[in-house]
């Protein structure tokens, strides 16, 4: 789950992480009020969408850039007016762009130094690890590849947590002079507290800045939250913005289906994440392109299978569907009934290839055969993949 920049700022403030003052606005008037209350001539107005590349983006209205510096509350108001209600296209949004419903108005600062700071889980040692670098504001993967000596890694004992001496050690490794050390240590400790308290899987501050005035601030922060832990964080679930998500994925999550939209034209419906990934792989291996990842899970109901089908056929780029089920807990007859039900409800206009194996497979095949639904049977996973790729290919004239 992703959150907006202004929400990230709220979280940072809640945990005492120093950041630039600012607030969100939904109207130009509100933007003006926020700017005035900040009481400074150094302002920045930023469009709030989840995609990156906002500064270099273009609004469909023709207005350039989703991030602007300005000097007065009146200018902040004018900028907000240009952005709110308009659609911003960036290299990450795709050509459709995203509608801007909110802007963040905050103080801009004069930067003397930019650093990178992140906390994530290192699976190899089953512990949190801080990854930091003096080279901030740029792509950290590039730094890691070109100048690995500039990356500092500090594993943290899961039961002890981040100790004060570790924050001092880190501050020194990152070149903070004595005068800035206290502020840097406080920032590291607060971010670690936030990471644990909110069940994050990653917190990334890029850049972490030292201002010309000597303040140490988290200028922008990205959060990834552990989906498995959201049940104990209703306050974070409230941050979810469905308008920013793929509508197919939103629909799927309502039915507790694990769905990820992709760019191809062969839809797949599979039980189990590993088998679902492998099914995508074998489609590609035989020259096709998967339209999605869809795991109906180990214990899907007939209704979930029907819902899954609705999502697949609603996608106009889909030219064929592959159902690949290895029945364990999930019984093949349940899947078969779901397919028959779905075929009654939705208009199945594309070829359907079905491969069933495992628990109650005979009953499942019988249900499908007797339903009269036109479908192509796959004998095994390779046969099914070859057939669905052939079915999706454009017909020769």
């Amino acid at each position, binding site marked *: 789950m992703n959150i907006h920049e202004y929400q990230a700022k709220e979280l940072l403030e809640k945990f005492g992480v120093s950041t630039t003052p600012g607030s969100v606005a939904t109207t130009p008037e509100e933007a003006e009020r926020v700017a005035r209350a900040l009481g400074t001539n150094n302002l920045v107005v930023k469009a709030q969408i989840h995609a990156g590349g906002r500064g270099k983006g273009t609004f469909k209205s023709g207005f350039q850039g989703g991030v602007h510096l300005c000097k007065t509350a009146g200018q902040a108001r004018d900028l907000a007016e240009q952005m709110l209600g308009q659609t911003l296209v960036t290299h990450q949004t795709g050509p459709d762009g995203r509608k801007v419903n909110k802007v963040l108005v905050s103080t801009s600062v004069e930067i003397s130094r930019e650093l990178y700071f992140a906390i994530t889980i290192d699976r190899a040692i089953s512990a949190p690890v801080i990854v930091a670098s003096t080279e901030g504001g740029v792509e950290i993967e590039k730094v890691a590849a070109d100048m690995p000596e500039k990356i500092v890694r500090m594993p943290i004992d*899961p039961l002890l947590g981040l100790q004060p001496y570790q924050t001092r050690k880190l501050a020194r490794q990152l070149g903070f002079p004595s005068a800035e050390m206290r502020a840097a240590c406080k920032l590291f400790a607060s971010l670690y507290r936030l990471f*644990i308290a909110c069940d994050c899987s990653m917190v990334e501050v890029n850049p972490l800045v030292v201002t010309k005035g000597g303040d140490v601030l988290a200028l922008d922060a990205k959060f990834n939250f552990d989906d498995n832990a959201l049940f104990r964080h209703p306050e974070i679930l409230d941050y979810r913005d469905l308008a920013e998500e793929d509508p197919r994925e939103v629909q799927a999550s309502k039915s507790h289906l694990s769905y990820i939209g992709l760019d191809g034209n062969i839809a797949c419906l599979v039980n*189990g994440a590993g088998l679902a*990934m*492998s099914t995508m792989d074998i489609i590609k291996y035989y020259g096709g392109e998967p339209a999605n990842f869809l795991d109906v899970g180990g214990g899907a109901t007939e209704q979930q299978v029907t819902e899954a089908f609705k999502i697949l056929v609603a996608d106009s780029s889909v030219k064929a569907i592959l159902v690949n089920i290895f029945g364990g807990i999930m019984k093949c007859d349940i899947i078969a009934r779901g397919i028959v039900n779905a075929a009654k409800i939705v208009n199945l206009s594309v070829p359907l290839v079905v491969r069933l194996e495992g628990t109650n497979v005979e009953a499942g095949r019988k249900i499908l055969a007797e339903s009269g639904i036109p479908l192509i049977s796959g004998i*095994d996973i390779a046969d099914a993949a070859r057939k669905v790729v052939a079915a999706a290919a454009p017909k020769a004239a």
Partner: protein
Amino acid sequence: MSILVDKNTRLLVQGITGKAGGFHARSCMEYGTNVVAGVTPARGGELFEDKVPVFDTVREAVKETGCNATMIFVPAEFAADSILEAVDAGIPLVVCITEGIPVLDMMRVRAGMQGSHSRLIGPNCPGIITPGQCKIGIMPGYIHKPGNIGVVSRSGTLTYEAVWQLSERGYGQSTCIGIGGDPINGTSHLDAVKLFNEDPDTHAIVLIGEIGGSAEEEAAAWLAMHCKKPVAAFIAGTTAPPGRRMGHAGAIVSGGRGTAESKRKALEAAGIAVAETPAVMADTLIGLMKK
């Protein structure tokens, strides 16, 4: 022979009175697993299926029944506590089926298990089976066949697919372990292949991995140095887009690490035959065994 579980396994089921726990406890019993006890707090004194005693705590179950393995079906929010309870009671083998446990909970469980003598399999896994002897988990028992191939995998249904292919071709299994799809788990690929390597009745190994992390690479490095048995592998997720979690919490490619390509290269460098597609997992191993 086999690894970890056999005819002498005496199984406890934590969460036996729940819907999933009860269903799968029954299915394990039908397969022939010796289920000797259940635990559900505040339900002590009941009998499951008119014969299996239910206890309030794991410690009581161990004392009264001598159970030496446990299968956990407790809901995700309480599962970490159930694992620690089983470890505290000294159960040597803890199999956690539960999916959706928060990563930070598993991180603390791992840290808390340091120095204990228990082995954890899972969480978010199908379990472990020694065909014909003992099934602990949710896998369909009938697709398995006693034999000499060891199977270790992060995935559930993809493992069934591999086992099915092996059984269909007449190759039975010594033991099949599903280690689970979470980023932090108890038993790794490396732990499992070490056990298979030591087991005289395991003659060859199938290793099934997926994108994310570096567990397959670690197993590959060890296998290259220490294992003389034929090993075939498959890695799921070649087509997965970076930055997206593919169902399993562990299956995510980030910062260019943990890709299917890098895993395949590491495995091949270790002399392991990597199946081109999931359809030829068994054939890849069989081809290797015939060489």
